[in-house]
């Protein structure tokens, strides 16, 4: 415990200048390799809506959204409307929850996931860039590259199967409002879930 506190204090001491990745800010660019071994950059998708979904198949909150097929349905629905959905696993290689890209790919496949790509961020660099805290932690980026939503996937922080279908889904709402040309009503929320395994 004492040791962890030191590590933590040092981590804070070594603060570094970045712009907060929050609604209204431009989304920082990043480059990652997907589970197929292909390099993917955020800037590849300029001119399109992009959803970033921080994921970790070991996390009960993530599993709940996949078991209820809530996540897959969103990926499918918005994928058909040319929205780029990127799932990012930022579990550090040193963490017990790290999954090899092939295993991660297999898991997503077995779930019938329909995202554009599953990205491997095994040194948590991109999570740090976005100050992502939880799984799931969601970001919606507009075609100009501005973050229009950052936070939780919905308004029910729980792992109960009956919650996702009945919750108010913030990502769905943000995409629907933005693609309709309306302002996004809720652009920030407190993310919930498991901590990202930095």
């Amino acid at each position, binding site marked *: 415990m004492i040791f962890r*506190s030191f*590590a*933590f*204090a*040092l981590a804070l001491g070594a603060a570094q*200048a970045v712009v907060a990745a929050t609604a209204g800010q431009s989304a920082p660019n990043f480059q990652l390799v997907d589970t197929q071994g292909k390099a993917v950059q955020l800037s590849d998708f300029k001119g399109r809506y992009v959803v970033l979904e921080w994921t970790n198949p070991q996390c009960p909150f993530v599993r709940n959204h996949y078991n209820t097929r809530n996540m897959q349905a969103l990926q499918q629905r918005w994928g058909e409307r040319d929205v780029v959905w990127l799932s990012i696993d930022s579990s550090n290689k040193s963490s017990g929850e790290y999954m090899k890209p092939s295993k991660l790919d297999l898991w997503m496949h077995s779930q019938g996931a329909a995202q554009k790509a599953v990205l491997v961020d095994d040194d948590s660099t991109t999570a740090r*860039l976005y100050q992502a*805290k*939880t799984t799931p932690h969601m970001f919606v980026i507009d075609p100009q590259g501005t973050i229009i939503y950052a936070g939780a996937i919905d308004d029910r922080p729980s792992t109960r199967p009956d919650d996702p279908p009945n919750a108010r889904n913030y990502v769905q709402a943000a995409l629907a409002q933005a693609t309709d040309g309306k302002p996004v009503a809720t652009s920030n929320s407190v993310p919930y879930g498991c901590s990202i395994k930095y």
Partner: protein
Amino acid sequence: MLRSAHLTRLFVAATLLALAVAAARAAPVRTEHVEAELVSERTALVPGQPLTVALRLAMQRGWHTYWRNPGDSGLPTTLAWKLPQGLSAGPIQWPVPQALPVGPLMNFGYEGEAFLLTEVTAASGLADSKLVTLTGRADWLVCKEICIPEGADLALTLPVASVSDADPRWAAPISSARGALPQALQGFAVSAVGVGQELVLTFTPRKEASDPGEAYFFPYKAGLIEPSAKQTLLRDGDAWKLTLAVANQRVGEFARVAGVITSSRGFAGQRAATLDVPLGGSIVAGTAPPAIATVPLALPADTSASSLGVALAFAFIGGALLNLMPCVFPVLSLKVLGFATHGGGRATMRLHGLAFAAGVIASFWLLAGALVALRAAGAQLGWGFQLQSPAVIAALAVLFFVMALNLSGVFDFGRLIPSSVATWDAKQPFLNDALSGVLAVVIASPCSAPFMGAALGYALAAPREVTFAVFTSLGLGMALPYLVLAFFPKWRARLPRPGPWMQRLRQLLAFPLYGTVLWLAWVLGAQLDNDAVLRLGVSLLLIALALWAWQSRSAGALRGWTVAALAGVAAAAAVVWPVVAASTPTAASQSTSIDSGGWQAYAPERLSTLVAQGRPVFIDFTAAWCVTCQVNKRLVLNSSETRDAFTRSNVALLRADWTRRDPAIGQALAALGRNGVPAYVLYRPGRKPLLLPEVLQQSTINDALATL
């Protein structure tokens, strides 16, 4: 009739008592990681009076559940009551949480045992002598590295009665939990002012108040204050100011600051208190670009991730490698000499080997015990800490010098030690072996071989049993060569046979010891000053003279030589005494060990300033008593090629000199998962700090800089 009614009443009373006892003993629900139950402070519900019941959660070691605001991740525990008519329950009264860091994130919650209190009230009309069952559904998220949602349906059955007794099992813990609940802060006027990215809570005492110590504020609402940001309490005139960071991804209106303020020494005696004040000033987080956001850099390889097996293996290999380190080598040589001269049967040989191994392992246990004790005392120490004390350095120098003189043949132990002790010593060769095992460990401490750092860092951060396991493994590794030689006589047969060469070898072996003495003198010079080195030198000279005089007793007048020898030792002690008595200065004069070449002395603030400027930073964790450090410095760090490479990449150079004890450096090393020097780390903007190997090569530096 009357008698019958009396009996009935007695029977009911007995039943109620039995039930009440049964309720108190109701088996708790055990989930995978938590033991949960509803417990009551008193044995009965009294209509019209509030009763405190608690949801008791006992978490497995290392696991935690969450407070009402879980921090960066997690979920608060919930308790949904299903109560019979006439009963009502209040909200959970949350105990003061702990701040639980998870990597760069922060959680608020409970480890160990938590009592979440709720006040239950029975309506005054509720019938007497009735049993009621309070049921509730408790749900919690329990996390260690992974998180598991758990829950239980719990029940508590209590009689309704006009009087109640304190529950023998639960009254005390519940009452103490209630006593520890945070109350509104007294004796201070509190204001909250937003200043851009930060907000400042000012605590002004209404009358004289003592220093609250370290403070930490737990906000009730998530999304307003950054949970992982550092909180610092500073004195400002009569008041204290606590600076908090506004959440990087702020959510919702931020009009009031409400939560629990805790402090190590208490605000006018209150260790934990609630506050709720309006927020003045203005904050800009969330929508405007902040000047500096706190994006913590992840630290390399969290030590908790490395498995025990790997740590034990590394400790074993590290222990074996210790034998090849320059500071252990003389002992190895001496020991090999011992094996060659011992002779005796195979069984005796094995016993010699085992005795030596026992000595080595026993001293590692002693070190582990000391480490555990000192760690518990909160001392910031690291491997090699023994050599941070000038007294230990001086004592070792004298010891090695005397041993060297013995090897050179200036005197013999047989004559120095009274014959009774000498023969006792000879009759106890196994004790002798064990003692040389101890000596080997004592002098091995400065040599933090490549495998040692990680294993020791692991042991320092690990539970007590693991610390002992790792140190045992280290000891086994170190004792390995001796055991092998003792148990495989064939290999031993390759050792040279005893003969006249032994005397010459013995004399030759004196020279590495003299070398060690020189090195220790140099370390002493780095710790103290030139004067200390001279004093040590004079003292050694007097000791040599005294030993020579002692040896000459047999040749000349017995009394005269003895007096001369004793006088010499006394004079030596007098000369060296100021050195031994010198307390370890805590890095007061860093400048002496910081040389030119663009190196600055390490300080945590300097590091954070440089990192905040976006400059890459290279830190050399070093000490004068660390041979590997000096070799790396001479051959690699001070080379013109390295200097040019650092300049080209605009790397800021910091040197953390651990020759003397310095808690800041000890903490920085611990944070890197290391526990000794050398350690080399390159901080890269926006990336994880890169730890370099302990033995540096030119290519190592070039490769590291290429990642910038």
